[in-house]
C-alpha cells in the first residue's frame, strides 16, 4: 500500500516538473496516469482536472491551460492535446473523453472585452466539447458546444452548437 507505484511516481513527477507553476500543484487534480511532453503552462488560480490517460504534447510549441479565478478546466479520460493549444476558462471548459485537440487551437469561454464598453468584460458562456470530437487549429469562442464526434476543421471558428457528428470546415 505504501509502495510508490510507477503510476504514482509519474503523477508526482508530472506535478513537480511539468505542470507549472510548481507550488500550485494542489489545485491540479490528476485522476491517473498522464503523459506529458515538452513545456506545459498552467497559470491562473482556477481549478484543473485531468483524467486518466490524458496526453499533453507540448512540442514544438508549449500548451497553456489557464483557469481564472472561479474557473475550471475539465479534461476527461484519454484526451490528446497538441502543442500551441491554449485553453482559457473564466467559468468552465469541458473536454469530453477521447477527443483530440489539434495544434494551435484556442478555446475561450469569455471575450474579455465587450463590443460597446471595452473595459467591461462580458458574461462567460461555458464551453462543452463532446466525446470523440476532433479539433484542428480551430478557435472556439464563448457559447461553443460540440456534440459527440463533431469535428471542427482548420481555420474553423465556432461560437454555436454543433450537432453530434457534424463537421465545420
Amino acid at each position, binding site marked *: 500500500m505504501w509502495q510508490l507505484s510507477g503510476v504514482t511516481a509519474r503523477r508526482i513527477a508530472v506535478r513537480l516538473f511539468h505542470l507549472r507553476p510548481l507550488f500550485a500543484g494542489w489545485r491540479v487534480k490528476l485522476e491517473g496516469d498522464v503523459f506529458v511532453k515538452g513545456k506545459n503552462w498552467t497559470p491562473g488560480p482556477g481549478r484543473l482536472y485531468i483524467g486518466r490517460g490524458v496526453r499533453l504534447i507540448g512540442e514544438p510549441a508549449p500548451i497553456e491551460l489557464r483557469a481564472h479565478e472561479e474557473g475550471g478546466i475539465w479534461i476527461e479520460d484519454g484526451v490528446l492535446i497538441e502543442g500551441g493549444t491554449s485553453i482559457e476558462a473564466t467559468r468552465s471548459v469541458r473536454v469530453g473523453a477521447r477527443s483530440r485537440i489539434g495544434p494551435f487551437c484556442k478555446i475561450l469561454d469569455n471575450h474579455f472585452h465587450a463590443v460597446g464598453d471595452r473595459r467591461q468584460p462580458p458574461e462567460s458562456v461555458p464551453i462543452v466539447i463532446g466525446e470523440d470530437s476532433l479539433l484542428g487549429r480551430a478557435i472556439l*469562442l464563448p457559447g461553443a458546444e460540440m456534440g459527440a464526434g463533431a469535428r471542427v476543421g482548420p481555420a474553423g471558428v465556432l461560437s454555436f452548437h454543433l450537432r453530434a457528428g457534424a463537421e465545420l470546415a
Partner: protein
Amino acid sequence: MSGLADKVAAALSLARARLQLRGTKHGARVRCHGRILVHGRAGIEVGSRTTFLAGIFPTELRCENGAELVIGPNSTFNYGVSIVARRSIRIGARCIFGSLVHIRDDDGRRIAPVSLADGVWLAHRAIIEPGSTIGEGSVVAAGAVVSGTVPPRSMAVGNPARCMPLEAVEPPQAPITQRDGEPAAVRASRDEVRAAIIEWLDDTRHFGEAASLITSDFVSLRRNGLLDSLGLVQLVVMLEERFGVSLDRDLLLANPEGQSLNTFLDLVAGTKEARS
C-alpha cells in the same frame, strides 16, 4: 502579500520593457510582462503606457532598414503578436491586440503600407494583409483575414473579411421600435419571408441544405446549429433591408436560443399587417 507581489511584478515589467525595447523610441511607462523579439530598433516607435502581456509565444516587432513601425500610446498586446514592417505600419492609440495577431506590409508580391486608426480591437489570430486600412473603433473578429479597407466603427468577420456596422452587433442601449412615418417598401407574405430566409441560409451557411435542415417553422434556429449568434444579427439586418421593416432587436436578442423561423415570420408579416 499579493499586493506586494503585484507591485514587484509591475516594477519588473517596467524594467523588462526598458531592457527589451532599448534602442527604440519608446514613451514613458511602457510595460512588458513577457518576451519581445525586436529587430531593426531604429525604426520602431512605441507610445507611452503600452503594455505587452506574457504567454506561450514571444511578441515579435520587426522593422527593416528605412521602414517605420509606429505604435500609439495606451495600446495593449497579448502574447504572440507579430508585426513585420518593410515600408510602413502605423498603429493608433488605445488599440487592443489579441494573441497571435499577424500584421504584414509585404506578402512577397507587393509592398503596401498598413494603417490602423485609434481604438481598433484585433481579436485572436486576426491577420492583416498589406495595404489594409482599419477605421477608428473597428473590431476584427477572431480568425478574420483583412485585406482592404475596414470603415470606422464596423466589425470585420471571416476570410476574406466582410464588414458590418458595429451597431448591428452591439446590444442596443434603448429599445428600437418601429420607425415612424416610413412605409413598408415591399409587402411580403409569410411564404415570401420563409423563402427569403431559407435562400439566405443556403447562400451564407448551409449551401443548399437549409430546406432539409428546417423541418418545421417551430424548430429553434440556434439549438440545431443552423445559426450562430452573429448569424442571428446578420439575419435581422438582411430582413430589415430586404423587406423595409424595422424589427424589435431587443425581443429577438433577449432570447436567442428560442428563436424559430416562426418568430421571424410573425415579426416581419406582423409589422406589415400593423402598417397596412
